[in-house]
Structures are given as C-alpha cells and as structure tokens.
C-alpha cells in the first residue's frame, strides 16, 4: 500500500528509471519489479521514521525519529537520499527536490539494493509481503488500543521493544528439534533404566573372590545414594529449557504468563525484529553492493558531461570516512572492488598465498577475468561477518589505513589500539557479530524452583552498560512477572544482576 494514492512519476524520471532498469538488467542484476514514488522531505522523513513502511502501529518512537530527521534536515545537518524496502514488488522513494543527477544516482543505487534483497541468501526467508504484514500488525495493535487504552498498550510495547534484539537471527535458517523438551521430563527417564534396579551400575567387572575388594558394598551404597540424591535434585529443580535458548522472545512467548493481547503484541514485535535482522547482518555488503552498482552504472552510462561534478561530489560525500566510524558504504564498495580485482588477476589460492616474492605478488596477473562472476557469488552467499572473514586481507587494511581502537578505562578516551591485520580483523568481526550486541541466553525459566527467569550474558571481554541493563531488566520483569536475573561480568568479576519488581540487586556470583 503506497502512502497515498499512487502518483505517476514525472515523465523525465520515468524515462531515467526505464534506462537504469535496462542497464542494470544488462549487467546481470536480477530484481523484483521496483516501484518508485516521488515524495517531499516531510513524507520521506515520515516513511523513514516508520522504517520504510507507511502503515505502522502507533508508537512514540516513530514520532521521535521523525522529529529528529526533520530537525536534522531543517538545520542542514543531514539528509536522507534514498529509501528502499525489501518487498516484492520493491518500493523505493525519491526526494522531489533532488536534482536529476541525484535521482539517477539514487535509482541506480536502489536497483543494487533490490538485486541484493532478492538474491542474498540471508534475505531468502524474509516475508516479501511485509507491507501487508506491517499493516496487519498496525490494525491488530490499534484494536488492542481500542479495548485496553493507549497507555497500557504503549507501555507494553515499550517493554517488548526493550527486548527486541534478544532473538536468534540464524534460527530461521536452521531446522531445530521440533519442540524444546523440558529437562524435567528427561530427568525422569534414567529411573526407568532397568540396569539401575539390579545394582550393577558402578560395578567393576571382577572375579567372585575379589568382588568385595573391587566393589566394596559400602562404597556402592554411597554411590547409589548419591545418584538418588542427584536424581531427586534434578527432579526438584525442574529447570528448563534443556539447552540455553538464544531466542529469548520465543521463550517468553511460550512461557511467560501473558494475556492474549500481550502475547500477540510480543509476537508482532518479534516478527518485525526477525524481518529487520538480515538488514543488520548485511549492512556493509548491501550498501557496498548498491554503491558498486551506482558507481558502475553512473560512470559508464548515466552521466552527462554537465553532471560529472555533482555526481563526484555526492558520491564522495557518501564514501567519506572518519577515524571513529567505519563507513559501510566505503568498506563495502572497496572490498567488492578488491575482490573483483583479485579474481580478475588470479590473486587468490594457495599459489598466490604461498608466494614470498613481494614484487611478484604485486604484479601477479593470470588474466583469469573471474572478478564479476566472483562478486555475484559473494553477494549471493555472504553476510557481513563471513564477508569480512573471507575477504579482508592485510594488503587491503594497509591500503585503506585501517586500525582498531579500544576504550582506555583510565583516560576515558578511545585510542588507536593496533594496525596489525589480525587484530583489526578480529576487532571488526567482534563488532559485527550479532550487530555488536551482547549474546544473551535464557538458561533457566524456573530458577531456584521459584519460577524466576535466569539469563546468561555470554561475556567476551566487553561488559554490559549497567544502567541500560537495569532498565531492561525492569522491562523483562514486566513481562515475566516473577523476579529476573542476568549473569554477566562487571568490573572483571562474575556478577548477577537481579530485579524482583521492586528493587535491584547486584551480587557477585
């Protein structure tokens, strides 16, 4: 559903779109039908605030986002150029006041994105009818607001959003056991084991006359008691899930004492989080790919002489780098170009890797011409983490003056930590994995057999932000209704943060 009645594109832009579409298709890009709409900045900000979808449920954060975009624009601090969403057909928005050069650039860029959405494996399972789905979500939430009041629903949505990143972005791609089995029921099984009753468990094979020495009866008895005790404890604790579960939202959906409408709202938030996840996983690749194609198409086909300067200005603006932030557009496009170059010249494989002669390495050219084919393959199968892991090279890091930085606790400054390839790569992978967010698992939904919820932060050297963690626990408790705990590391010591609905507690583990 477009944001308003569909307005036909002005004929000059429609002509550009036809051209661009043809050129993109000739290059082998493969995309869903793409519908461009031309909007003014207010409309574009609105759509951007809604994450690209014109109909969303009512929530203040969209308003906040909109406010920020509008202010940023009116103060001349920032400007959104393009907006495209992953649906079939793809919808993309053009800014009315942009000059023709920009419209061309954006259209070419959008076709890159559309191709990526359609062909990248990580997007394969996203709902291409999300426009309708989002509108459905909006209708459902609106209905709940009608019957339960804006405040109540909004408060609950806030609580859910606070946990929205506690999903398992890989899970849609994995076939797991059909239903998580409760630990308690498996714990019952050993008792039925026939071997246990005849007392042979724990016995060592022995000759009769040695039996009393090798298997002393009192020790056997002791062991049997111990087993009995363990069994009893396991039964009593009734811990579940059996395995730590990363999809905390799913766990809450299945186990938290929610009202029907609350469960539905939570599932809506979870659906949308899963839909958005691949975009987070492929930011560098997606932007790199689109930038690669807009630059290819524009410089080879799109530009008139008069437009070159404008194009160069805007392209370089998008590619600008800064010491504190890695620009995904820049990193993406450069890596893709690097890959194309390497596969064109054959700078890969054992022969190249093992070559010690720097001169020879630099002038290595086997005229393979496999570059284009390779980058198409890359866009099909990789996400940011695997992309960096596979293709980032020491030469590339050096050429692009990359460095890793780290927080210095004593000076409260971020400082350049290293220019060594291994460390840069490790740091980059760290910050890309899980979108730079902590890994958090549900380990026990019946902690201490009191129905408390116990989460585990998989600590990897980066501590949680305490105030946020506390606020998030409050929201978690709102949903779980029983005390909630999270185990993590604070000030280098294992610590458990708890919230019981009234007060916070922090205990060393």
């Amino acid at each position, binding site marked *: 559903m477009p944001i308003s009645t569909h307005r036909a594109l002005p004929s000059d832009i429609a002509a550009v779109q036809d051209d661009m579409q043809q050129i993109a298709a000739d290059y082998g890009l493969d995309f869903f039908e793409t519908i461009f709409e031309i909007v003014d900045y207010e409309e574009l900000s609105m759509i951007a605030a809604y994450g690209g979808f014109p109909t969303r449920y009512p929530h203040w954060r969209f308003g906040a986002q909109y406010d920020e975009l509008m202010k940023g624009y009116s103060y001349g601090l920032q400007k959104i150029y393009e907006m495209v969403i992953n649906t079939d057909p793809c919808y993309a928005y053009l800014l009315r006041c942009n000059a023709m050069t920009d419209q061309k650039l954006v259209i070419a860029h959008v076709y890159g994105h559309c191709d990526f959405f359609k062909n990248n494996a990580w997007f394969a399972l996203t709902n291409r009818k999300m426009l309708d789905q989002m509108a459905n979500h909006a209708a459902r939430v609106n209905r709940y607001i009608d019957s339960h009041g804006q405040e109540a629903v909004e408060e609950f949505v806030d609580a859910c959003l606070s946990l929205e990143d506690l999903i398992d972005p890989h899970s849609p791609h994995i076939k797991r056991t059909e239903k998580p089995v409760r630990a308690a029921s498996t714990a019952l099984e050993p008792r039925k084991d026939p071997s246990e009753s005849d007392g042979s468990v724990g016995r060592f094979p022995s000759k009769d006359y040695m039996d009393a020495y090798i298997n002393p009866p009192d020790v056997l008895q002791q062991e049997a008691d111990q087993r009995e005790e363990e069994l009893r404890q396991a039964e009593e604790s009734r811990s579940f899930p059996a395995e730590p579960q990363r999809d905390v939202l799913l766990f809450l959906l299945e186990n938290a004492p929610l009202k029907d409408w609350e469960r539905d709202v939570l599932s809506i938030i979870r659906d949308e989080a899963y839909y958005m996840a691949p975009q987070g996983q492929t930011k560098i690749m997606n932007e790199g790919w689109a930038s690669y194609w807009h630059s290819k198409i524009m410089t080879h086909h799109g530009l008139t002489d008069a437009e070159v300067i404008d194009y160069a200005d805007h392209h370089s603006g998008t590619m600008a780098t800064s010491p504190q932030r*890695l620009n995904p557009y820049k990193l993406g496009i450069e890596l893709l170009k690097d890959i194309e170059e390497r596969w064109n010249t054959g700078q890969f494989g054992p022969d190249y890797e093992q070559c010690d002669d720097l001169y020879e390495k630099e002038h290595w050219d086997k005229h393979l011409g496999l570059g284009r084919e390779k980058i198409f393959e890359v866009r099909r199968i990789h996400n940011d983490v695997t992309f960096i892991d596979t293709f980032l090279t020491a030469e590339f890091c050096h050429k692009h003056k990359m460095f890793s930085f780290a927080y210095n606790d004593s000076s409260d400054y971020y400082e350049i930590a290293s220019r060594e390839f291994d460390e840069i790569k490790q740091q980059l992978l760290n910050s890309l994995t899980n979108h730079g967010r902590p890994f958090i698992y549900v380990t026990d939904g019946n902690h201490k057999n009191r129905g408390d919820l116990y989460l585990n932060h998989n600590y990897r050297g980066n501590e949680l932000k305490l105030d946020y963690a506390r606020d998030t626990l409050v929201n978690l408790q709102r949903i779980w209704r029983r005390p909630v705990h999270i185990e993590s590391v604070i000030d280098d010591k294992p610590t458990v943060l708890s919230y019981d609905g009234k007060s916070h507690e922090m205990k060393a583990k």
Partner: protein
Amino acid sequence: MGRNIDRDLSRFKNIVRGRLRKDLRRYITHGEMLGRKGREVVSIPVPNISIPHFQHGPKGSGGVGQGEGDVGQPIGRGGQPGDGPGQAGDAPGRHVREVEVSLDELAEMLGEELELPRIEPKGKDTIKSKKDRYTTVRRTGPESLRHFKRTYKQALKRMIASNDYNIDAPRIIPMREDHIYRSWKSIPDPQANAAVIYVMDVSGSMTDDQKEIVRTESFWIDTWLQKQYDGVQTRYVIHDAVAREVDEDTFYRTRESGGTRISSAYQVARSIIQREFPPDAWNIYCFQFSDGDNWGEDNNECIKILTDEIIPHCNLFCYGQVESPYGSGDFIRELRKINEEHENLILSEIGNKDDIYDSIKTFLGKGK
C-alpha cells in the same frame, strides 16, 4: 486527514513534556534555561528518551576506523564512537534533545509544581486602557475614511426625494452634506498591569555563584508574573554604595565591587515607583537580592524608606538573602524586626541553588 506520524509525534512530545514536568525541580535549580529565552518559547535541553536494551558499555569495547594516526593516539571520548561499524552512518548521535516550550506553558508547569495560587490582581477596574474600533459612522472626517457605499446611498436618497433623479440618465452626484465617514468608538479594555523591580546587590561580596542564583530565580519569577498579568514592566536596579537603574543585560552581567549601602537602592526604587508607576494603577512587585551585608549605620535609613514609601505601595516586597562566604548576613535580621507589621514583606534565605525552588514558593505562594 491527520497523518499517523503527527499522532506519533504529538505522543512523543507529550512524553517529553511529562519528563520535563517530572524533572522541573532540577531545571529550576540549575540555570539550564537561562539565556534561552526566545520571544515566546524557550528551548529546554532534555536528555534523549530511548528504549533500553542490553548493550555493551564502554569498558572493553572498541572498533575499527580508518585514517592516519599512531598506535595510542586518542580518537574520541568515551561514549562517542558508535556501537560498531555495523551501525555507522545510519546511527543517530546520542545528543541532547531540545524541547520547545512556550513561556505560558512553562509558567503553568511551575504553578502546578510549586502549587502557586493564582494572583488576584488589584486595580482591575481602575486601570483601563482604551482600544479603538471602527464600528460607527460620522458626517465629518478625513476623505481617506469616506464610506463610499453609504455616501452613494445618501446621495441617491436625497436626489429621489428632491425629484432630481432621472431614471433614464441615473447620475448620482453626491454633495458635501451627503458624505459619510467611517468612525471609531473607544472601547475600554480592562487590564491588570504589573511592574516588577529587581534590586540586586553587586558589591564585592557577591560572587558569580550568587549572581547565578539571583539570575535563575528572577527568570522564574518573571515567567510566573508574565503569565499572571497582561503587561509586565520590568525595571532593574543594581547597587553597591550607590545605586543606579540599569537594563536587563547589565543587571545580569555587572560585577562591581565596593561597599554596600542598601538605602541607595531603595531611593532609586522609590523614585521609579513615583515617576512611572502610580501605585493605585499598578501592581508593584519588588524583589531584592543581597548577601545581607550592609553598612551598619545605613540600616535605619533603609527601614525608614521601606516602611514609609515602598512597602505600602507594593503588592509584595520580597527580600531574598543569598548566602555568601563574605557577607555578614545581618540585614535580614533588621527586616525580621518589621516583618510582623507588614504582611506583604516576604523574607527568604537562599543557601544554595537547591533552595531556589523553595524560595520561589515562599515569594509567590501568597497569591498577591
């Protein structure tokens, strides 16, 4: 049709306002709004409202950047770089958000927060300004105000009556006596006017901190009084051993030194009242801020002017004594002696910024 985003935006603004209301006390006591006074709205910085997630703190965090620099070179303060390159480019900065609130609304919040009574202005009936409305007509007036249609009608009437009207050649010729002019009526417009006189001690013993307190408190008092009256006239007086009337800017910025003679300020205040604000037509407020350090022999003189010529004319005379490391703080004792007899003399001691809140309540809590 209202757009959905407008609904979300106003919802967000309400939340921000709620936050502002909740923390108003903090904003009152810290001079965060001062100097932000626009014509009718002030922008107030409110910490950004965000939804909390489990996320990494600075400790142990890092990232990858591009550019020149040696190992060990600082590139940004803690909390500055984004969460990681994954969010680069599209991550909005965590800056403080400015909320625009109209002064009226602010006064309202202040009133609710401090439970200030509405002020019953005196002289509502006696003070009248007049407004002119063009609602009537006259036979004389300047040509520019001539009422063409009425003049024509009048001429037509006359010509028909005098049988000069020829239906075949309907020429109407207005004569001098046909002319009709628009005219006005004066409509009395009842108005409550207030005059506020701020008096500040700028002697050597008043430090910048104390002036900051005075400044903050004056802002809030001003905001409240502006809301209560249609026209508020403000006058500023500063004094050390001598006093003079100054403009707003000077009032807030001057730093002088020297002795203190409060009576000099009272004399200036007295003459302002006599010259500009006849007490039966104006609601007069005096706010005096000092560290209470007066030249000893001057006290009697002060009390005399105050009791005879200032307090009787004022709705309120408020004396705020700012605690100073240098001042003796004696003056408030002198005033306490006469406090019994004068209901509209209000005294308040302001120890530090946190007392501003209560001090405002003391001053304005009487509803005068």
